[in-house]
């Protein structure tokens, strides 16, 4: 059977060049980067060269780059680390306020929920029907004691891009003595949007290697110099003491290589992927009745085409597509394990019963026009079969 992968936003295959770059570091150059002997030095050099490469792409200093375990751990370290570094007097609930959005990935959202459970005041910003954060709402939410604002660079479920530069300017322009630190989760964007932290004006930014052709098991955290971040795990001096534990040398090397390649192919990827995504969107809206695109019509990532199909349940669509060899994801309750559909869609104002019928296609550099044609051939029948099965219930 044909197999078509359209779930690149979930994870990406490792590129051959990345595997090649990592290969020597498993068995041949296996040293612990903290060891002083030649084996260790060899590993240390590889880690630091990787850090240099990443720093160059992010337009920052190598010391501002921390390698962690995953995007989720980077998000946790960024948020909890800033709070841990607060002075004692700020740590009482009414002296410390945090802002994030209601559409964040759970890696961010659940971390703020945790802080809230510990007594911290947290504001969750809403979004408009396209998933865009309202700058006016943000401006109103900022208080003299706001220490951290975290807004995702682009939403991973619907692809809407958030106005990161504008948010940064807004935070800089506050009249309060304390300027809130600004964190962005950039996990979804590495292959398509600028990662220049100076241009973006962020203090902290997280990335995950497996979203851009790198290995699973590494996260990147950019921490601007002077941003107070304290560790959240303990046990060593590694990564400036912020992510203790033996460095995963092969994975770190692979991360740098993958990021380098994804920047190299940036322009080409954007063009190819956008064209195919638009073909998919147009085709689906034409061929399938009673469905609509979710997310912003234009201010969206090139790779994500997300839809709501009325009168069907997303998991059923996903499984039927899978039976045809097509891999996608869904924000339906049945794929989340907690019986609630995607929090992102609900916050965008999509009714719960419709949110159950959500499907996300996410394309990659290797997606072909023929694959999109195949989807457009199979999808309409799958939706109509499932609608027949429900008899319009």
């Amino acid at each position: 059977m044909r197999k078509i992968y359209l779930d690149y936003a979930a994870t990406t295959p490792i590129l051959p060049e990345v595997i090649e770059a990592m290969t020597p570091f498993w068995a041949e150059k296996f040293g612990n980067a903290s060891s002083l002997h030649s084996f260790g030095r060899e590993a240390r050099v590889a880690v630091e060269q990787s850090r240099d490469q990443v720093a160059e792409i992010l337009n920052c200093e190598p010391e501002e780059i921390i390698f962690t375990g995953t995007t989720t751990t980077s998000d946790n370290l960024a948020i909890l680390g800033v709070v841990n570094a607060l002075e004692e007097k700020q740590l009482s609930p009414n002296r410390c306020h945090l802002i994030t959005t209601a559409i964040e990935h759970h890696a961010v959202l659940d971390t703020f929920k945790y802080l809230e459970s510990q007594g911290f005041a947290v504001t969750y910003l809403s979004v408009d029907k396209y998933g865009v954060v309202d700058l006016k709402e943000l401006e109103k939410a900022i208080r003299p004691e706001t220490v951290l604002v975290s807004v995702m660079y682009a939403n991973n479920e619907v692809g809407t891009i958030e106005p990161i530069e504008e948010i940064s300017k807004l935070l800089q322009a506050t009249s309060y003595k304390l300027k809130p630190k600004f964190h962005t989760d950039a996990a979804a964007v590495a292959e398509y949007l600028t990662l220049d932290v100076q241009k973006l004006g962020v203090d902290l930014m997280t990335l995950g290697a497996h979203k851009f052709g790198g290995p699973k098991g590494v996260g990147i955290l950019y921490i601007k110099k002077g941003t107070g971040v304290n560790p959240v795990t303990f046990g060593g001096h590694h990564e400036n003491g912020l992510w203790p534990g033996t460095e995963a040398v092969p994975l770190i090397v692979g991360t740098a290589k993958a990021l380098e390649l994804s920047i190299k192919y940036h322009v080409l990827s954007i063009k190819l992927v956008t064209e195919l995504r638009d073909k998919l969107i147009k085709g689906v809206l034409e061929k399938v009745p009673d469905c609509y695109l979710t997310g912003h019509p234009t201010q969206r990532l090139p790779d994500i085409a997300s839809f709501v199909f009325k009168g069907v349940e997303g998991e059923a669509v996903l499984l039927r597509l899978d039976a045809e060899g097509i891999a996608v994801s869904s924000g339906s309750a049945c794929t989340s394990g907690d019986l609630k559909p995607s929090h992102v869609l609900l916050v965008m104002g999509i009714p719960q019963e419709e949110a159950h019928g959500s499907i996300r296609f996410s394309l990659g550099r290797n997606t072909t026009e023929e694959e999109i044609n195949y989807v457009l051939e199979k999808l309409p029948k799958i939706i109509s079969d499932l609608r027949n099965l429900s008899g319009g219930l």
Partner: protein
Amino acid sequence: MNQLYSEKVMDHFLHPRNMGELPGANGVATVGNKQCGDVMKMYLKIEGETVKEAKFQTLGCGAAISTSSMATEMIKGKPLSDALKLTNQAIAEALDGLPSSKIHCSVLAAEAVKRAIEDYRSKGEGGK
């Protein structure tokens, strides 16, 4: 930790048995709601004390569709007394198990059967 669908679940999902409306059904019930994402409508044709035919319509996930399909298979041709005893565990077992997060679908399917029989009974002996 069984978080994946069994082959039997997938078989009933991809090739649902007894789907569709049943003209002349004398016991009908709808359970679940759209808010939760799963709705099942059970149609039974009962003659004497026997379930002659059973069909279903389901809006829902893979487990919702396969449990309703399996439920109809398990009660078709059976005495009403047996059909009434159909439990969600029996449906799940007949499907070689369900992921823990999907047990509620089998509960819904068992409830649909029970409610359809109640509907038949509530109409009196003829069930019309």
